[in-house]
């Protein structure tokens, strides 16, 4: 039953991706100007611009170009960068790996930290600890991430010199070295995403505390931590998992500012550069990857919700 559901969701996900690809393509079309104008500048004559368009194939009608592009994507060919002439897949792959590395790094710290913290604040709800944790995470989520980044650089790099302020990567670095060099951007991201997940964990658990089975657990003599961890948490996963998925998606797609602050060569920077230069194939490929990330993570969240629901896992 679950397999059928997953297949159905995957199919729907692909359909969504198709619609998104349409939106991306025509939204990019709406951007004023194109590569020919961007490269040749204000002074270019109509003729030179037209000649370059013809050379790049930009003079063909948009639907035809969309179909070409879509056909390429379906056969695994993302096209070539208009700017560098490089294959888009080559241009993107290293950047994407960097972004995924940073996202995983942040997620591996943030998700367990947020959920455990959420359990603790639910256990000691309305105590000083609860309030301090809530205020601290709210402050971190309310501050812009570039600000957080600079604050961390100021204290952990400039003043103490504990961590490097710029996260430059080289191919021959060891994993330890990589983790050390990217610690500050990862920490910034952890601070940004923790609050959301922690507060949802807390709310989802507290929401269940009025349930008769929680009262039953208390009347069976279970200590408070066991009531929370064993009786409330297993029933609270669905909303928590959804918020985790949302934050993971953010870690992949929303980290441009952090990348800029730490000069980190991720996909977000690539996208911003490509938009500025009207390098449409790269823009489209990046957007498509972002959309696929969202769809896949939401699918994973749905499957996770099902797997944690005994009613769906063990039908009558």
């Amino acid at each position, binding site marked *: 039953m679950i397999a059928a559901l997953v297949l159905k969701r995957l199919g729907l996900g692909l359909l969504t991706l198709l619609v998104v690809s349409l939106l991306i393509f025509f939204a990019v079309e709406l951007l004023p100007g194109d590569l020919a104008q961007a490269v040749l500048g204000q002074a270019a004559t109509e003729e030179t611009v037209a000649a370059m368009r013809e050379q790049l194939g930009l003079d063909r009608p948009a639907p035809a170009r969309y179909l070409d592009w879509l056909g390429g994507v379906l056969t695994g060919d993302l096209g070539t960068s208009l700017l560098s002439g490089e294959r888009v897949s080559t241009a993107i792959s290293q950047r994407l790996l960097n972004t995924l590395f940073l996202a995983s790094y942040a997620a591996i710290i943030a998700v367990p930290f947020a959920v455990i913290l959420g359990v603790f604040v639910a256990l000691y709800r309305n105590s000083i600890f609860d309030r301090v944790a809530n205020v601290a995470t709210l402050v971190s989520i309310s501050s812009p991430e570039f600000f957080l980044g600079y604050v961390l650089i100021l204290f952990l790099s400039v003043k103490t010199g504990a961590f490097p302020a710029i996260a430059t990567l080289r191919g021959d670095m060891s994993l330890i070295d990589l983790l050390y060099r990217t610690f500050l951007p990862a920490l910034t991201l952890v601070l940004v995403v923790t609050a959301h997940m922690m507060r949802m964990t807390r709310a989802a658990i507290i929401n269940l505390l*009025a*349930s*008769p*089975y929680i*009262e*039953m*657990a*208390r*009347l*069976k*003599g*279970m*200590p408070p931590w*066991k009531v929370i961890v*064993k*009786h409330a948490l*297993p*029933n609270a996963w669905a909303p928590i998992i959804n918020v985790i998925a949302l934050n993971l998606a953010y870690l992949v797609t929303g980290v441009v500012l952090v990348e800029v602050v730490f000069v980190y060569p991720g996909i977000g920077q690539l996208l911003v550069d490509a938009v500025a230069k009207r390098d449409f194939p790269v823009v489209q490929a990046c957007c498509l990857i972002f959309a696929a990330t969202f769809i896949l993570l939401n699918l994973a969240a749905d499957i996770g919700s099902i797997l*944690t629901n*005994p*009613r769906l896992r*063990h039908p*009558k």
Partner: protein
Amino acid sequence: MAARDEVLLTIENLRIEGLSGEDWTEIVHGVDLTLHKGEVMGLIGESGAGKSTIGLAAMGFARDGCRISGGRVTFDGIDLTAAAPAELRGLRGTRIAYVAQSAAASFNPAHKIIDQHTETPVHYGIEDRETARKDAMELYAQLRLPNPEEIGFRYPHQVSGGQLQRAMTAMAMACRPDLIIFDEPTTALDVTTQIEVLAAIRDIVDQFNTAAIYITHDLAVVAQMADTIKVLLKGTEVEEAPTEQMLSNPAEDYTKSLWAVRSFERPIKQRPTDTEPLLSIKGIDAAYGPVKVLDDVSFDIHPGMTVAVVGESGSGKSTTARCVTGLLPPTKGEIWMDGAALPARYQDRSRDQLRQAQMIYQMADTALNPKVRISEIIGRPARFYSGLKGADLTRRVDELLELIELEPDAYRDRLPGELSGGQKQRIGIARALAAEPRFIICDEVTSALDQLVAEGILRLLGRLQDELGLAYMFITHDLATVRAIADEVVVMQHGRVVEQGPKDDMFRPPHHSYTDLLLSSVPEMDPNWLTELLKARSAAGASEAATI
């Protein structure tokens, strides 16, 4: 079942406060209670009497928003009101256990039944997991659960309500406690299932000589279970006496009034031979998606008559009502009113057709919009169907309020939240009457109400029927209600009509075997009723039929 000499639990001058808004108000006003080892005491009373609150206080527990503000609860020499939280936890589940009203809601949906059973003994190191599991299976067998070796490994949603309630009793027994609090353990069950659970609880309490506090609002049930009965009213004790004496010779007026409710009965009306049926259900089938829930249901309702539709949950009573109102178009068959077929969907019916059939719901709490004033709740149908407005509308609203015996000036401008349960149900009735219908569907309208309040509603419905010539389709699972008000009875099971006819015929043998099962399962006030019934059933070999 005789009371033993040694005192197990004493409650002295217990006072409990509840938080209402900002203030603490006292809800239990100095109750005393003494329970001996192995004794079963029944606590009865209407809602708001403080039964559950007192039961929980016997475990040293107060719900959120409640606190024990005075008095002393002493369990086996330990003062529970002064005990530290850890000490209280050590007693709960091991020496004092709790069985909740709804086992379906009180079992954690995320864990297997047996894991919840073994949790307490394993946590407190009384037994290791294996021993505790074996013991659980033995208890399941003693409580006559099917497949005792296997049933514990299911999740709560995979087990029926009656079985879950027995599994919860087994769970309470896990550490062989000295005292079990049973908080309305059979209220949510059908009568036929209730019998099995009652018998199982009684046997096991007897066998382990466990003392129990049995909380219920059902006198006949408590008569089967308790050695002594304590009657409570609004947080104070009315009286306490041994069961036999309490049943045969109650001392207080309030107790007598509780007893008297059970004998309320309206004179039966004969179906007029010359009239056409007002409503005629002709061979309808209905389904929710692929699941067929009604199978060839047919019956007639004549003007001014009350037809009770009875059956257990899932028998298709409410679905039939949904078909009649057009909320659920039948897949086969027709519904006729006044000699003409009604369109299947309510969207296709004329305003006059809609007006003729009105509905009153079980949960008046959720059936009334909490943000709308009474005058508007009643006024809207009057405006919609009769086009009244201005002074005429106000006059009509007042008239309807008087009809349901509520003072118009005092109630017109209130919100539903400012009314009691019985008053809300009266507003539900007035709203139905506002359309000036000839036919009203009453869907379990008294199930959520206390007996005295329910009786008031039944008397009101009876009076309205006499004055306005209304016909009722009265859906209920409660045979006492049927006995009180029905003219004709339709018995349903698994989406089919198994028997129908005038009430007197239905309550007189011979009946269909299912009707017989239903009728014989209704608890009676005789304390020996359960014992006799079980004897008779096992003698007749009918016990299989009762094992649901």
